[in-house]
């Protein structure tokens, strides 16, 4: 019974993600206007036939911004997750496989990275960036930074897994029959790391979506007029009651639904990894 409901949950999560991705991909056709179009005579408007989710404080259609913002956050978060997983695989996986001094150095670097106050460093890094970058470049840089800095936890997991693989019977046996180290790594170690890599990839996506949202709230994420979930969530900062303008919560609900869907899929990946 439990397995059936889990499967149903995963199917539902998959359907939600497909629907959200499809809607955001079709933003050009679904949105009533561009994300930057300002209806200055209809600022802060409630939902209507013209603006399904109303307009923001400077008259931009909220539905259009949600669609385009979803596209940005959902496309770039997996890209950043891929980059961080790749780095984790390279640093953690190789260090674990080689062992000895290599593993100690790699883990020391990882610990150092983990102990740094990343929020402040990200703010500083963003502030040090050239000012004159287009919104698109600012989006790319934001996610690139997240990807480059988010590999540490995954690297520790991969290092431990690779170390256990190194001392496993089948690897010892392969070494005993004279298989060269490089070939042994690609044929026996990497395929066995794959489930862990997948799991780390899926874990990273919601983390990066939330990190970008946090940077957006600090005014340091995706530049105007480009929307992202972070910039859309900024609208909620001054709200004191849910009933005041409930349609403003749509981006938050979407974020929760998408992150939950990722988590449901992730549990499947963890089962595979186990």
């Amino acid at each position, binding site marked *: 019974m439990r397995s059936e409901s889990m499967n149903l949950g995963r199917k539902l999560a998959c359907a939600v993600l497909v629907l959200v991705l499809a809607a955001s991909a079709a933003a050009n056709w679904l949105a009533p206007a561009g994300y930057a179009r300002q209806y200055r005579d209809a600022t802060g408007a409630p939902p209507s036939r013209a603006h399904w989710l109303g307009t923001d404080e*400077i008259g931009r259609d909220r539905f259009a911004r949600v669609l385009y913002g979803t596209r940005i956050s959902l496309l770039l978060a997996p890209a950043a997750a891929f980059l961080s997983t790749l780095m984790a695989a390279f640093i953690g996986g190789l260090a674990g496989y080689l062992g000895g001094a290599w593993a100690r150095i790699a883990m020391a670097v990882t610990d150092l990275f983990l102990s740094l106050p990343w929020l402040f460093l990200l703010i500083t890094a963003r*502030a040090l960036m050239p000012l004159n970058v287009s919104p698109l470049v*600012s989006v790319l840089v934001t996610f690139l930074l997240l990807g480059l800095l988010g590999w540490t936890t995954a690297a520790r997991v991969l290092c431990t897994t690779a170390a256990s693989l190194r001392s496993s019977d089948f690897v010892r046996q392969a070494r005993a029959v004279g298989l060269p180290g490089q070939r042994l790594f690609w044929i026996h170690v990497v395929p066995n790391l794959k489930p862990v890599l997948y799991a780390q990839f899926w874990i990273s996506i919601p983390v990066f979506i939330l990190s970008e949202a946090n940077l957006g709230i600090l005014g340091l994420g995706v*530049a*105007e*007029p480009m929307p992202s979930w972070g910039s859309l969530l900024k609208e909620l900062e*001054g709200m004191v009651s849910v009933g005041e303008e409930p349609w403003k919560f749509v981006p938050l609900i979407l974020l929760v639904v998408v992150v939950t869907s990722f988590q449901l899929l992730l549990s499947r990946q963890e089962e595979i990894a186990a």
Partner: protein
Amino acid sequence: MKQHDRGSKQLAYRCGSAIAVALICLGSLLGQLSAQSGELRFCLRAEPKTFNPLKVEEDSSGAIRYLTGGVLVRVNRQTQELEPGLAQSWKVSKDGRQISFRLRSGISFSDGTPFTAEDVAFTVQQLMDPALHSPTGDAFRSGTGNVETKVISPTQISIRFPSQVAGLDRLFDQVAILSQHSPKKEMAVLGPFMVADYKPGSEVLLKRNPNYWKIDEQGRKLPYLDSIRLDIQPNRDVEMLRFKRGELDLINSLDSEYFDKLAATSPQLAHDAGASLDSEQLWFNEVAKSPIPGYKKNWFRSANFRRAISEAINREDLSRVVFRGHAQPAMGPFSPANKFWFNPNLKPQTYSPDAAMKSLQSEGFRLENGTLKDKDGNTVVFSIITNAGNKSRERMAVLIQDDLQKIGIHVNVVTLDFPSLIERMTQSFDYEAIILGLTNVDLDPNGEMNVWLSSSDSHQWNPQQKTPETPWEAEIDRLMRAQASTSDLKKRKEAFDRVQEIVVEQQPFIFLVNKNALSAVSANVHGAAPVILSPQTFWNAERLSVPAK
């Protein structure tokens, strides 16, 4: 029996009367005690950059200076009249070059060091020291030469300036007196409060100055408050939430969005004092040594380019959309709220993308596939920076971005934390355009000498010029010095009217809007009377009181 009854009644009556009198006395005493206790809490929007009152150049340090600094004379923010402070009386000489003060006696600094005329002389010498680059001191610089101070007695001093300084006495409203002899230096103060604790990034705690000299009409020592806690909080949403929760007692300057929300639910807490003297403006970096490309410097140093940008900005929309009608489109350097000094000949800046395009074409700019290019083929793109967390400025930047897109200009909006922005603006000059506000403390244009003199640090678009780099800046320098060196009000007005016209012609600052003075004051605060002059809500801090918790 009857006699006994009568005696009992009399006794009861006397006892009752005595208890009533005692209760009234106790109530009065408690009232007095409660009036003289309590902690006021409000927010500073940024970290104070200095505690030296002579080096103040931004709002946070200015607020601390206002609350802690003792001044010789004080402009009453409500009546706009000059009132005696540490000086009992003063006299400006006929030639406007000399001012003599008679000081109050028996006054001490917060650390107990006696206050004398020597301290005033020391403060003036520090203020006018060119090495200090005091923005407050700039207002006194009407000519070249040294300032002479003459201490006549411990309570008498005269100060002579090299040339006439108009509105000389009012300028001393900004000069907090330092102690010459105190080992605590600038932390020894003469104002109602003193800095007791400072946690960088968190708060500044001011405690009542036990040696403050003022008393109220009933003979009670001022200030009434025990302390003022200034939380450093750049985020205005958080500030508003904390005010609504009762964690803060006032918000000195309120965003129009929150003002409307607050007025809808608690109209008695929201105060609109009317059009203020403050302005919001955009300016381009015209600093020759700035690390921006040369062709961009050429654009920014072109008056036609700046005028075109000004014409392409829809100020009506900025007032209506961003400030919800709680602002007026700006016409020039002074708000029309400044009834005497505002130049009535200035016309509202017209919004005309077509006229903007014509101005640009006259400079060799051209549109190519919807993108503006200069005569050398460079795409016209620049960044506008503003402080993160200030929603009004962020929204103005996005509206301007959209307006300029209509004439083919691509604008990148960047929000930075305030210290980074100030560092770029004043140290590295690594920026292209900025949106910020100008807070006018005084009605008199002399209060803005530090902005308009080309040699000043606060001449933001191109500060610290050794000699004026453009003829119009030289003309502004001359006119500002001329108006500052005569006491003939008509001549001063003529000179400053011309300054306003030049600024509108040249657009070094593209003035956007004049905001209304909006504030929020908790019902707990007694004695509050918000005004348009800064600091709007705590200008009478020494007479404010809140119930002790």
